[in-house]
């Protein structure tokens, strides 16, 4: 049912999506006095009520495995566990997506104010200077239309505002930024550092969007390691708490929740004049009018919105004269390996919680070496005495077997002995990997859904082989015994993550100087539609081995300042 309110207000900017990109655009634009209407497909977030920070597992009868024990059978409805602040999952009821035959892809969506920033890993890595010009270096992929110097000031602004830990290291693959002090390494992290030192691999303090000093009125981290559950004291970055909630007090922001964007409405000149959305609570169709629109619904969701915005003028979808919307989709290459470390057996008990994430990590260190695959990866480190949860003792039960006092002693001995390494590497865009509109399927709102095509290539598979060799070397140098899924004889296609599972999907609305090859210009503004901007992972030209959130934030900041200036000049 259509409901058009004739004398509805015209907002300067409508932003679709309230995650890292939309949250940043909201903050920057409202700070500059621009009126913003923010559409979020999910409900409002109430951190004090919704976050399960500091809950013990025994506070729920099912201990976190789910009332129907589905966690024991690999079908958990919680994505990252009952206690996580994901507010979403790999599948959302009523909002399906499809994959082309023979392809695998998994798409994580969080419908909530703040989106996936409520639970994400907070890893905050700058792209390196060479990451923007990789094609020039190795002839693969495409160069960005911007360089490190264009984005560097915006990394500065983003880091200063949201707060990021780290240390000055002078490593080219991991440019230094504006850092707060990172807490010291945990015991297992000291071992990883020592092993890396022996192997000539750098292992440096973590760069996490967690504050260790008071920042803009937010109190510092209290070291409970539960960032993934959401932080009631806002001591880590989430777009909801750090950007959207403060902007609500500016008088410049209208937030509309449960608003599922369906289509962008263009005027006769080809500019966007309104965003049409489904009000999920009443199941009615509404429109909100604007002078400009910023898509920040996530790389794939923004591409979907553009592809679904068809008109006689834009038969291919809006801003898609290049035919590249939905194309160039990538995720990070993922590979994990863990080991039992005998040196940590019966370690004296202490509180090793710390920040919600590793305190040290391995940046890519072979950027100037010739390898049998292009680009590189970084290594994330897991371990320590985490809060016991369902599964904590499984490995001891399985390996030690037995029962009674003897089993209890083994469980005590093994607690905190597991160290895991996770590789996150660069995938090169390929022609077989993209998202398109499924011609046959709509979601419960009647909106055509995405159909994914996803294929890894030799470049990624060889990288995973390299990860496996490296991780094995590090863990064995620590005296570790490799656990679980270690099968060197397996083909690398069986070791690599399923596409989408690292939740770093980017590239579907990429930027570029040539309108025939890229939907957006170097300011993330559509070549075809001057008042249309994209501020999520869509504009990425490549997907380097740096988790995308910090770069989404910096690019959104840069885009927002540009948009504000263009509006001031009357160009938008």
């Amino acid at each position: 049912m259509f409901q058009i309110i004739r004398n509805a207000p015209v907002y300067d900017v409508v932003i679709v999506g309230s995650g890292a990109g939309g949250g940043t655009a909201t903050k920057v634009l409202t700070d500059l006095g621009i009126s913003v209407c923010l559409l979020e497909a999910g409900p409002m977030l109430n951190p004090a009520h919704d976050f399960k920070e500091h809950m013990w597992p025994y506070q729920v009868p099912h201990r976190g495995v789910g009332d129907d024990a589905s966690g024991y059978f690999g079908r958990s409805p919680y994505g990252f566990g009952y206690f996580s602040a994901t507010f979403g999952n790999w599948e959302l009821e009523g909002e399906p997506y499809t994959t082309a035959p023979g392809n695998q892809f998994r798409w994580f969506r969080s419908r909530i104010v703040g989106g996936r920033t409520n639970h994400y890993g907070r890893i905050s890595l700058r792209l390196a200077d060479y990451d923007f010009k990789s094609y020039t270096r190795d002839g693969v992929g495409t160069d960005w239309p911007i360089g490190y110097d264009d984005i560097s000031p915006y990394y500065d602004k983003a880091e200063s505002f949201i707060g990021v830990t780290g240390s000055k290291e002078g490593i080219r693959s991991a440019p230094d930024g504006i850092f707060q002090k990172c807490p010291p390494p945990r015991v297992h992290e000291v071992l990883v550092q020592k092993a890396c030192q022996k192997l000539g691999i750098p292992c440096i303090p973590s760069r996490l969007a967690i504050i260790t000093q008071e920042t803009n009125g937010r109190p510092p981290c209290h070291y409970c390691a539960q960032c993934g559950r959401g932080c009631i004291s806002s001591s880590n970055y989430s777009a909801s708490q750090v950007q959207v909630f403060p902007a609500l007090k500016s008088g410049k922001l209208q937030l509309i929740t449960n608003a599922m964007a369906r289509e962008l409405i263009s005027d006769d000149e080809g500019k966007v004049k309104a965003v049409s959305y489904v009000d999920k609570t009443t199941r009615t169709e509404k429109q909100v009018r604007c002078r400009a629109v910023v898509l920040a619904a996530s790389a794939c969701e923004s591409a979907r919105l553009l592809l679904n915005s068809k008109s006689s003028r834009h038969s291919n979808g809006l801003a898609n004269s290049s035919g590249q919307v939905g194309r160039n989709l990538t995720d990070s290459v993922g590979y994990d390996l863990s080991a039992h470390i005998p040196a940590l057996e019966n370690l004296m008990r202490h509180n090793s919680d710390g920040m919600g994430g590793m305190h040290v990590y391995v940046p890519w260190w072979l950027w100037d070496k010739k390898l049998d695959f292009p680009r590189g990866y970084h290594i994330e480190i897991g371990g320590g005495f985490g809060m016991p949860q369902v599964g904590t003792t499984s490995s001891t039960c399985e390996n030690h077997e037995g029962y009674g006092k003897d089993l209890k002693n083994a469980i005590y001995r093994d607690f905190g002995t597991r160290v895991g390494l996770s590789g996150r590497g660069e995938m090169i865009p390929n022609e077989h990997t993209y998202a398109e509109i499924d011609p046959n399927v709509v979601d419960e709102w009647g909106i055509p859904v995405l159909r994914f095509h996803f294929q890894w290539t030799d470049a990624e598979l060889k990288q995973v082989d390299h990860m496996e060799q490296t991780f094995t070397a590090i863990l064995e140098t620590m005296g570790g015994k490799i656990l679980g899924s270690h099968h060197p004889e397996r083909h690398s296609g069986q070791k690599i993550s399923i596409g989408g599972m690292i939740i770093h999907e980017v590239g579907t609305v990429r930027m570029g100087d040539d309108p025939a090859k890229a939907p957006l210009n170097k300011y993330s503004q559509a070549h075809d539609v001057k008042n249309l901007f994209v501020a999520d992972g869509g504009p990425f030209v490549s997907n380097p081995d740096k988790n995308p959130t910090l770069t989404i934030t910096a690019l959104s900041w840069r885009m927002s300042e540009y948009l504000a200036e263009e509006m001031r000049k009357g160009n938008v």
Partner: protein
Amino acid sequence: MFNSELSRREVLRAIALTVAAGGLTTADAQHVHEMAAAEKVASGGAYKPKLFNDHQYATLKQLCELTIPGANEGGAPEFIDLLSSHNTELAVLFTGGLAWMDDECQRRYQATFLASKPEEQTALLDLIAYRRNAHQEGLGHGIRFFDWARRLTADAYYTSAPGIKEIGYQGNTAVAKFEVPQEAVEYALRRSHLG
């Protein structure tokens, strides 16, 4: 160490103190209230089995306690019954597994598992607690069942307050400064030969 109901509130109070601007909001207070209520539900009152009959539940309790001493206090039988009542795969595993144990004890000791002597009960566990005995005629079913029983019992116990205390987890609390005991670092370095 924070593993009682009271301590949890202390944790949240500590957090509230950390929240510089004005302490807890009304919504925060409501949250704490709900948490405490949930705790009572989770820990209070005598549990009435939802799936198992009296004999099955008594057998399960004995099995849990033998598997992980203290498991009954840690709520393992409730945990297993609750989950099995909502999950047919688990229900079949446990009702079938408990029946298998009675059957096997009848064959060996002419009594149910519960009615068997303590040393007979442990003699059976000595067999089914190890995969290496799987070649023995008929033990495969018991071994598979015990694998699940052990896993769920350990999960329940080590996510309970007494289990968390026993394993020595000392976190889930607010601290102003994160520190690592040097003694622990030296212990690990020495044993890893990386020092």
